[in-house]
C-alpha cells in the first residue's frame, strides 16, 4: 500500500469514528447484558431529555427488563439483541428489575437508572 493510499484509508477511518459537525448525533446506545443473576451494568446514567437506546441481551435464558416508573418493559430473548428506546422526562432514580423468573438468584436481579437534569 502506497503512502497516499495509507493516508486516504486513515482519513476514511477517522471520518467513520468522529462525529460530523452539523449532523444529529442520534440516540446514545447503552448495551445491557442480563445474565444469571445480574444486569451488567446495574447502574445506568442518563440525562433528562436525552435520547437513549438500551441494547438488551441475555446469553443464557429468557430474561425480562422492567422499569415500571419509566413505563419500560421488554422480554430479552437469548441469541437476540433487543433495542429498547426511551427518553427520560424527569430526574430521579428509577429501579429496574428482571420480571421473568429466571432461577435461584432472580429476586436479587435488579439495578437503577439514574436520570440527572440536563446540563444548561
Amino acid at each position: 500500500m502506497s503512502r497516499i493510499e495509507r493516508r486516504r484509508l486513515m482519513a476514511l477511518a477517522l471520518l467513520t469514528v468522529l462525529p460530523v459537525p452539523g449532523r444529529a448525533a442520534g440516540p446514545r446506545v447503552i448495551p445491557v447484558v442480563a445474565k444469571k443473576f445480574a444486569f451488567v451494568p446495574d447502574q445506568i446514567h442518563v440525562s433528562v431529555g436525552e435520547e437513549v437506546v438500551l441494547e438488551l441481551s441475555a446469553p443464557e435464558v429468557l430474561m425480562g427488563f422492567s422499569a415500571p416508573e419509566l413505563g419500560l418493559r421488554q422480554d430479552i430473548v437469548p441469541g437476540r439483541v433487543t433495542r429498547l428506546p426511551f427518553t427520560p422526562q424527569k430526574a430521579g432514580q428509577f429501579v429496574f428489575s428482571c420480571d421473568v423468573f429466571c432461577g435461584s438468584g432472580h429476586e436479587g436481579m435488579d439495578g437503577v437508572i439514574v436520570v440527572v437534569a440536563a446540563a444548561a
Partner: protein
Amino acid sequence: MASSSNRREFLRLAGLGGVVFASGCTGMAGRSAADDFYFVQLSDTHWGFEGAPNPDARGTLPKAVAAVNALADAPDFIVFTGDLTHTTDDPVQRRQRLREFRDIVGALKVRSLHFMPGEHDAALDGGEAYREFFGPTHYAFDHRGMHFIVLDNVSDPGASVGDAQRAWLADDLERQARETPIVVFTHRPLFDLAPAWDWATRDGAQVIALLMPYPNVTVFYGHIHQEHHVMTGHIAHHSAKSLIFPLPAPGSQPRRTPLAWDPAQPYRGLGFREVERERAAWQITELPVVKA
C-alpha cells in the same frame, strides 16, 4: 363443629387469635348455618430455604403443621397458596423438596387439602415437577354451595395467567349462578400491588374483568409474605403471611429483601390464617406459628 362464635372465643381465650378482618357481602345475613364453616390458608413455606432470615427453616413448617392440628376444630379444608418449596436450578433437588414437603404436610389432620404452585415451584419448568406430585396447577371445586377457583399465575415465568387459562376461567364462570359466592386462590396478586417488585400479574386486569360481573368474589393469595387487604371494585383481595420469612411493606424500600430474624421475637411476622364463612361474609383470623 362448635359454633363459629364459640370457636373464636376459644381462640381469644387461648391468646391465639389475631386481628379479625371481615370481608364479603353481608346483604344475605340470616341464611341458615349450613354455609358456616372455615378453612385454613397456609402460604409460602419455601421448603428447602436456608439462610439468616430464618434460622429454623427446617422447623417452621412442622411447627405450623402441629399448630393447625392443635386447632380446637378441624377445618373443612386447608389450602396452600404457593411457593411450597424454595426454588432450585436443579430439577432433581426440586423434586426432592416437593417430595419432602408433601410428606410433612401429609401429617395434617384434615379431610381435604388443596395446593397450587408458586413461581419458586413451577416457573423454571412450566410446572412439570409440581404436577408430578400435586396434579393440575389450575382447577375448581365446590364446597357448601360456594365455588372455589385455583388460578395459576406462576407457571409462566413472565407471570401471566395466559389466554388458555383465561378462556377456561370464562367458561367455568359462565356455568355459575351470578349470586354464587366465589373464592379465587392465586399465588401472585391479580392487581398491580408493586410492579417494581414483581408483585403483580401481567394479565391480572383481564382476569379481574372476567370476575367483575359476579357480585360475591373474594381473592386469597400469597407471594408477598405479609397480610395485606385491597379492594378492586367490589372484589376483596387478601394476602397471607409466609411460613419462612416476612417481606417489607410494598414499595417501602428500594429492594424486597427479607426482614431480619429477631432472636427476641422468633417467628415474628410468620403465621397462617383461619378463614371463616359466617352469615354470608368471610371472617379472617391471623394465627402465629407458635404462641408468644
